[in-house]
């Protein structure tokens, strides 16, 4: 064994423990180390200055230990290690555990008297002797070891400072917030911290020894003693000169068995480059020692180094610091900061807030062990509870630091705080107070969920009321309308509500009326209920123009039809883009252009794609068994069948679907509200998936279905969702809110536990039968057409506020700042 540090010591121990348990000792071990003493506990190095004995227990008399002896050559042909003093040691297996050397950056003055590194007991002894008559010291490097060294200097009676080139302390373990909190602790201990500034040079005093550190910003840090702790470099020179492969940036290249490219030579510890990594923590180094011990005693061993958990927890100058999992994962963060107590905690969780990816704890690391155990696993409770060591789940499953409204940068914590402080009781009040949901509005359902949970937690009865005009939830209104056969909003609000409605309840009721089959959505009173998208059968864009999306069922389209779309877009100067749902979106149409555009499209055989409605959007498909070598069913045919069946179906929110022709899942069906994947025997049905803001994989609802079974189950699923979901609740959230979840849904849909399947089937049959193309019917009706003007008193005048510029050969909107008119009071 070449090198005698902690890793080598561990290997010797493991080898002696396992070797020859049955057959008697097998290996004769020789250890050659260059330090003057046998291996000691380097992790506790600093305590040497306090008089601690770091020596490991002696390995036993049968281990041949040579200290202060350096191996300078490996004679691989002869299988001998040659030392500086000319001694030769034969081997059957050689283990390199040469460790690392401190990295000293090439800074002017690095070789001045008074400059030290911090690695061995000898280094510390020399440093202590030198410090005896000095007043100030500085450590270059604010990592784990650097902070230890700074504490050591302080212990030696020096005014000490830490210089870290990175913007914060412990940059390899902590995020910025954690580093900042740690800095406060360290400064409170009377140390100066200089972070984020490179070092220009070390400057000597009159005596020729180092006296200060000069930073690039001109600042001078007094330091009669300087310790470099700026990282490590693997000691691979022996391997290099022996012709073994080493990494580009250092480290002896080994496989997962810790073997070099010479099968008789292993490398472990800080000198080894394993899986592309050099590990500087003792844990992984010990793991490597264990692997080699196993391999040596058992030729059939498959022991392998599987990578290491780099989690660390330590007490630095009395401050708990911990980092676990991947503290830099690009993920949702839950942050808790208590500046008074000096506590900073941050958890990183997967986008669905269910899986713990990593985190950082400073000032209070009590939860470390629990948290570390859950890295990569499903959290047993809410992340914010986990931060405090608790696991009992309660309402409000969104982490405190989660940005709920990314438009206005409002976090769940902000919202909860305002709900409590300002006694907010409804979504409108929360929006007004926090600004969450006031821009794009996509987070409003989440805001409501937070509000409900917060109010429930405070023991305040949660109103299920849709808005101030109705004391009922959407599902309750649905039942009222269905059972009492109400067909107008006026009657509904007169008999069951108050006031005149609003932009929440009107479109909701419009959707319910449409779901229950009440004719064209622009007929009679219903016209006044629709939001602008449904009102103009198009999607409003940011400059007040609309986009047009013709239906392309299953994403299948003939060249002739493609040409028509191209011609229409060209003739009306529209911006065109392929959508994620396998169709084509045409942007930039003014209100008065919509009928002309649609006339052309309808004449060519297109129909409304309902991109504007809370309704079925597309059923995406892969090319399926017709063309694909791997397809097992006709996915395109099924997608078209489904899209034509459910087109125009109004729902609490938009609905998306996809059909994949085989298990390769090219259509991404598992991210859809209802997704279908072909099997050899039929179809697998997946329900309640979602992409978008809160991705959710769909649940496998039933397998190997026939075409008929598939349609029946989807019919019931959709109708049950339409009947019972909240306003703007996607199927994913709805599924999660169903008590009993997927199993309950199977009971309702397959076993007819509620006895409503016949009703659901009839409702869907009515929908399929009564479907008509909204655009064709609109074009045929002068009354419906009357609304398609920009100005009621100048029907032919285009809106002068709408203008475009050209980008990448297509139009894009120019937003003209509006005139600032004075407000005239009446």
């Amino acid at each position, binding site marked *: 064994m070449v090198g005698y540090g902690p890793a080598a010591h561990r290997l010797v121990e493991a080898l002696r423990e396992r070797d020859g348990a049955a057959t008697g000792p097998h290996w004769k071990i020789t250890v050659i180390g260059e330090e003057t003493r046998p291996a000691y506990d380097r992790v506790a190095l600093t305590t040497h200055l306090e008089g601690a004995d770091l020596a490991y227990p002696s390995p036993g008399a049968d281990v041949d230990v040579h200290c202060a002896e350096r191996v300078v050559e490996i004679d691989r042909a002869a299988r001998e290690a040659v030392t500086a003093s000319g001694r030769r040691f034969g081997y059957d297996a050689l283990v390199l555990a040469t460790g690392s050397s401190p990295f000293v950056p090439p800074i002017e003055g690095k070789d001045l008297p008074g400059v030290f590194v911090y690695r061995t007991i000898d280094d510390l002894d020399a440093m202590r002797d030198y410090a005896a008559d000095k007043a100030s010291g500085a450590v270059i490097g604010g990592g784990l070891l650097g902070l230890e060294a700074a504490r050591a200097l302080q212990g030696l009676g020096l005014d000490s400072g830490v210089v870290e080139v990175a913007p914060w302390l412990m940059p390899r373990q902590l995020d910025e917030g954690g580093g900042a909190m740690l800095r406060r602790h360290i400064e409170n201990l009377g140390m100066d911290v200089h972070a984020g500034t490179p070092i220009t040079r070390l400057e000597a005093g009159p005596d020729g020894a180092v006296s200060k550190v000069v930073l690039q910003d001109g600042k001078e840090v007094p330091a009669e003693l300087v310790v470099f702790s700026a990282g490590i470099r693997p000691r691979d020179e022996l391997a290099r000169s022996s012709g073994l492969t080493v990494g580009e940036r250092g480290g002896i290249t080994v496989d997962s068995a810790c073997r070099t490219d010479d099968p008789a030579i292993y490398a472990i510890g800080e000198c080894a480059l394993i899986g592309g990594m050099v590990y500087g923590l003792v844990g992984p180094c010990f793991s490597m020692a264990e692997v080699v011990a196993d391999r040596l005693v058992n030729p059939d061993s498959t022991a392998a180094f599987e990578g290491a958990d780099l989690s660390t927890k330590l007490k630095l100058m009395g401050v708990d610091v911990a980092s676990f999992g991947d503290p830099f994962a690009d993920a949702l963060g839950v942050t808790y900061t208590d500046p008074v107590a000096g506590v900073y905690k941050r958890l990183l969780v997967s986008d669905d807030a269910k899986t713990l990816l990593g985190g950082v704890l400073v000032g209070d690391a009590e939860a470390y062990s629990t948290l570390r155990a859950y890295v990569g696993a499903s959290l047993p409770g809410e992340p914010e509870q986990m931060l405090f060591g608790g696991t009992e789940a309660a309402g409000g499953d969104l982490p405190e630091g989660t940005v709920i409204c990314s438009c206005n940068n409002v976090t769940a914590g902000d919202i909860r705080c305002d709900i409590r402080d300002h006694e907010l009781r409804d979504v*409108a009040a929360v929006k007004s107070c926090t600004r969450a949901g006031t821009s794009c509005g996509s987070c409003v359902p989440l805001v409501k969920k937070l509000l409900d949970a917060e109010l429930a937690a405070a023991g305040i009865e949660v109103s299920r009321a849709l808005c101030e005009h109705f004391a009922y939830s959407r599902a309750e209104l649905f039942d009222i309308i269905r059972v009492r056969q109400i067909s107008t909003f006026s009657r509904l609000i007169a008999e069951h509500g108050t006031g*005149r409605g609003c932009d929440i309840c009107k479109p909701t009721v419009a959707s319910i009326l449409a779901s229950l089959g009440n004719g064209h959505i622009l007929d009679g009173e219903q016209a*006044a*209920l629709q*939001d602008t998208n449904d009102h103009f059968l198009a999607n409003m864009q940011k400059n007040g123009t609309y986009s047009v999306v013709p239906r392309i069922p299953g994403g299948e389209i003939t060249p002739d039809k493609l040409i028509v779309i191209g011609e229409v877009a060209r003739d009306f100067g529209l911006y065109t883009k392929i959508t994620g749902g396998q169709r084509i979106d045409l942007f930039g149409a003014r209100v008065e252009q919509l009928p002309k555009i649609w006339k052309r499209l309808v004449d060519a055989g297109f129909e409304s794609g309902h991109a504007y409605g809370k309704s079925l959007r597309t059923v995406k498909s892969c090319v399926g068994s017709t063309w694909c070598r791997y397809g097992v069913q006709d996915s395109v045919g099924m997608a078209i069948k489904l899209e034509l069946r459910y087109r125009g179906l109004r729902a609490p929110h938009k609905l998306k679907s996809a059909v994949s022709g085989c298990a390769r899942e090219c259509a991404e069906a598992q991210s859809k509200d209802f997704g279908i994947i072909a099997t050899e025997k039929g179809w697998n049905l997946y329900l309640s998936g979602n992409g978008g803001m809160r991705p959710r994989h769909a649940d496998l609802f039933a397998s190997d279905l026939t075409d008929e079974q598939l349609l029946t189950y989807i019919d019931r699923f959709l109708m049950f969702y339409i009947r019972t979901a909240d306003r703007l609740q996607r199927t994913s959230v709805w599924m999660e809110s169903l008590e009993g979840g997927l199993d309950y849904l199977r009971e309702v849909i397959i076993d007819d536990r509620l006895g409503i399947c016949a009703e659901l089937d009839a409702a869907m049959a009515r929908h399929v039968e009564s479907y008509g193309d909204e655009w064709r019917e609109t074009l045929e009706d002068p009354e419906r057409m009357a609304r398609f003007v920009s100005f*009621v008193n100048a029907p032919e005048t285009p809106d002068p*506020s709408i203008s475009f510029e050209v980008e990448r050969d297509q139009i894009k909107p120019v937003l003209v700042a*509006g005139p600032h008119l004075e407000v005239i009071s*009446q």
Partner: protein
Amino acid sequence: MTATAVSTWIDVCSLDRITPERGVCALVGGVQVAIFRTFDGELYALSNHDPFSNAYVLSRGILGSRGGVPTVASPMYKQVFDLTTGRCLDDPDTSVPIFSIRLNGDRVEVMT
């Protein structure tokens, strides 16, 4: 541009062009005026300009009431405006101009 009080009423359209509980937009001397007709037959006129999106779209909003006050919600980002004052109920610091409006026979007239 500054709104100036014009002494004359400008004819816009007949009442039946405005669906109850909806709005239309009129171009009056270069100014876009959103005109609303509520269920009770009242008429209101606001600037068509939505100060939150800078788009001219208020006439396409949904009418309703909040605490008894007749309102329109911007179709863009859903801020709610008081039809009688032009004040935004979700952001009291923001208002839109309002205009005088009347019914003359079956004709709707505004003054900008």
